[in-house]
């Protein structure tokens, strides 16, 4: 029934015929031009930051500025063109925000990689190599390709609904994979967490992708079952409790997240999955009781875990007393030898404190003193060198992405897409909360990646895919309703856009 076909010009103006007597709602604009201007702004911030790293480290603009900068700019422009072609009505803010985060992550990874190398001040970070930034740029490229691929493959959110059980199964396999593999392949060295699949020098974290697959599965499942799940049973203390026989799904999700916790020692991801499920369940059923039940289940689980798994108990001790001597150091009294994981948290906090309000400036701090600063603790590197000001800006960028995602969820009509957008937006918020809260001592630290910023490919690619899904949903939500092109009474020829 499409007469004109999809318009990819993104100008937001559609050359519709007007006929007198027909009341026309002005078409919403695609706002791709706005996106381009903001993207240019994002790219220039990133390029300036990149130059600033070199100037801060050794007084010279980095020689790689031209190559890295141009590559990054081209990559983001490619993403922009893909949107023009594939999702012209999508939210114009999401790409510039994601590009800014991805770019700043690259800049920080470059800055950390350069510490102690090429005559720059500081100690070289042994877990990084001289080609880390190149690899990260490569992963960014794969991320943008995955972003475009999602837009190409998923032309309509509801298309995903057909594959919910397949995706659910894939999600479960991805989650369970590291637990089933031998520790030599699946354990992140030194952490005890079995969350990766490392073969050769190459590793991926399947849970990052499981996040998306499971979000799709939850959305599809909940859309199908929400009426049953919303049925109230008894009222206790003014709260409508669900019927016992409907408790199945929440119990299964809880059990899976606990298994994840126990077999992979990965509290962060476990909390992430369970939190995402709960929120989607709540939005699907609108029953607060599910939130209460789920949260209590999680707290009970976390308490049991803290009693049973020493790993978890240690995390609590570190959180409560990060600066007590035995938690930070061991060894002789005069020279402190770091030997327990609180050293990392303490160093990160020192970095944040050292950065203060305005930060030391890129290249002027000592973020390399914090172990694994390029992955879990990258936010403390930003806090140190860009200060409170820069950190607040980063948090606001995340906040904007989340709220734009939720905005798409509100706007879209299809309940499946609504739930999916809710789940994915919330999972970003929760992930940022868990990791930033963890490294700033707000909550016990659990090692998960910081979306877009941390070194590592899986998280980056998965984050780009989430942005793609959110943009697809917002594209669907903002796409103008089919317009009558002629006034023919009850029968209309409509034009699909």
């Amino acid at each position: 029934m499409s007469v004109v076909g999809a318009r990819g010009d993104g100008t937001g103006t559609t050359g519709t015929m007007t006929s007198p007597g027909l009341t026309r709602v002005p078409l919403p604009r695609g706002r791709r031009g706005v996106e381009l201007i903001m993207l240019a702004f994002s790219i220039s911030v990133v390029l300036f930051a990149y130059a600033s790293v070199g100037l801060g480290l050794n007084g010279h603009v980095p020689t790689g500025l031209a190559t890295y900068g141009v590559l990054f700019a081209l990559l983001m422009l490619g993403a922009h063109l893909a949107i023009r072609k594939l999702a012209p009505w999508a939210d114009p803010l999401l790409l510039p925000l994601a590009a800014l985060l991805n770019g700043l992550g690259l800049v920080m990874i470059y800055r950390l990689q350069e510490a102690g190398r090429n005559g720059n001040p500081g100690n070289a970070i042994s877990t990084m190599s001289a080609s880390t930034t190149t690899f990260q740029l490569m992963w960014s490229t794969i991320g943008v390709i995955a972003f475009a691929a999602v837009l190409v493959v998923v032309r309509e959110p509801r298309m995903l609904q057909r594959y919910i059980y397949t995706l659910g199964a894939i999600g479960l396999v991805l989650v369970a994979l590291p637990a089933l593999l031998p520790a030599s392949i699946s354990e992140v060295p030194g952490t005890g967490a079995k969350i990766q699949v490392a073969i050769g020098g190459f590793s991926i974290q399947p849970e990052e992708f499981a996040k998306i697959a499971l979000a799709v599965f939850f959305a599809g499942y909940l859309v199908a079952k929400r009426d049953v799940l919303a049925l109230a049973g008894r009222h206790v203390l003014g709260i409508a409790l669900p019927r016992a026989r409907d408790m199945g799904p929440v119990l299964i999700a809880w059990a899976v997240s606990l298994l994840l916790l126990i077999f992979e020692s990965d509290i962060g991801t476990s909390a992430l999955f369970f939190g995402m499920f709960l929120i989607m369940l709540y939005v699907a059923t609108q029953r607060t009781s599910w939130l209460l039940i789920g949260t209590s289940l999680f707290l009970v689980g976390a308490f049991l875990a803290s009693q049973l798994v020493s790993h978890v108990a240690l995390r609590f001790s570190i959180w409560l007393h990060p600066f007590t001597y035995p938690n930070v150091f061991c060894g002789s009294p005069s020279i402190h030898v770091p030997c327990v994981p609180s050293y990392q948290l303490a160093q990160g906090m020192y970095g944040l404190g050292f950065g203060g309000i305005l930060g030391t400036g890129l290249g002027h701090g000592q973020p390399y003193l914090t172990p694994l600063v390029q992955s879990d603790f990258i936010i403390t590197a930003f806090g140190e060198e860009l200060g409170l000001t820069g950190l607040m800006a980063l948090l606001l960028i995340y906040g904007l992405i989340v709220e734009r995602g939720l905005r798409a969820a509100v706007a879209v009509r299809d309940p499946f897409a609504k739930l999916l957008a809710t789940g994915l937006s919330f999972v970003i918020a929760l992930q940022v909360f868990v990791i930033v809260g963890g490294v700033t001592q707000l909550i016990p630290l659990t090692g998960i990646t910081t979306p877009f910023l941390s070194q590592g490919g899986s998280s980056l690619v998965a984050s780009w895919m989430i942005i793609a899904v959110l943009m697809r949903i917002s594209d669907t939500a903002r796409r103008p309703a089919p317009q009558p092109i002629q006034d023919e009474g009850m029968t209309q020829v409509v034009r699909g856009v």
Partner: protein
Amino acid sequence: MNHALRRVALACLAMFLLLLVNVNYVQGFEAGKLADYPGNGRTFAQQYQYQRGSIITADNKPIAQSKHVSGVYSFQRYYPAGPTYAPVTGYDTPYSKTGIEQAEDNLLSGTDPRLAVRNLIDLVTGKPRKGATVQLTINSAAQKAAYEALKASGRPSGAVAIDPSTGAILALASYPTFNPNKYATLNGTKLNKVDKKYRDSPQQPLLNRAINQTFPPGSTFKIVTSSAAFSSGKYHPDSRYYAPTNLKLPGTTNQLINFDNSPCNDGSNPTGNGTVPLIYAFTVSCNTVFGGLGMKLGGSALRHQANAFGMNTELRIPLKVSASQYPPVSDPDFTAYSAIGQYNDTVTPLQEAMFAAAIANHGTLMRPYMVQKVIAPNLTSLVTTQPSALSHPVSRSVAADMSRMMASVVAQPYGTAHSIAGQLGGITVAAKTGTAQNGANNTGLDDAVFTSFAPVANPRIAVGVIVKGGGLGADASAPIAVQIIKAYLSYLNSSAKG
């Protein structure tokens, strides 16, 4: 579903708000507290962004300086004569400091409130912050002589020299020692390795033997016993006292004997059952005489006298000094042993120097100190130490008697320290030797102890030396003291001429 969705959006907002409030708290309000945590390497690095003050000797020789280097740390510590001054300067690392580096850290680093106004002016005028210079009382000639002599002995040893009239410490050396330059690295791994090496070394190079290790005083404690006797008014140097070859100790089958089991005979005591003058007993160091005298005076009188000489007190010079011990004794036999420095009494080399210094300064013991003054970066003097009396262990006349006895130890041909008389080159020295037995059943090598001052008529320097396992005090320790004395007196001569 939009109703629930809006609530989710609010929840997300609340999470971000929590994060924002928390980072504001951490970076805005808690930053100062975080900076003060010990082991905060970033704060340390910040300290090294500007020049830490120098430590210089009394004769203006720099012994710790901050050199300009490139990198994150703009300055690195440098000790021009590292091991010689190691027990004085200590070291300065990201995680800990010792010695003067620790004791005067606030002034050296410039964070002391007394430098606040200066720092504010520098901040306004854009000048880099600088630490204050600490000038010590240490004399480079005496210190060098002390360290080199200890090193030549090859044994664990400590030596301290004091100006008796002020209490100013002229030399404070320890051997084996460490090289503080090795600690002046800003590479954590290297630092760790250096520290581990020193810490695990059986030679204990980090131990400051001059003030932090105590040894049995041996016969040098006879200074305390004699002082207590003279102060009682019942004795003077020429008083004769019972001098048996073997002194029977009440309540035990033990007998106190003299060194090498020899009789105490100045010619008037051929039977080994008569008496000798105290000055003779002191000069040849008869154990039986002072053992008997100690029992007669009693443990509490000895303890009182020992306290007056500064024992049983923890001093700060400003480095922390281990207290020399004279624990209470009541049994007469143990009192006899303690009176000759062979019971539970232990002393530091500094305490040995203080014995001689109190006698040399006419019975007044000046409070030992090592920091002469602190000079602000603008060259104004911030702190100048005024000498003060610590105690008055003996009267002027008792001090004169003691001085006469100690001079006799060197001057008389039969004196235990007469062997050094030939090395003195015209300087008169008053001294007391000690050869402290130790180990199980006294089977260990004897510690050589020596306390002295010079010149006798107009004392300018008091020196205490202890060489662990050095054997006879006169053999091992006395020549070390002589070298320190000669080095300092010749420095005084040349500076008076110059």
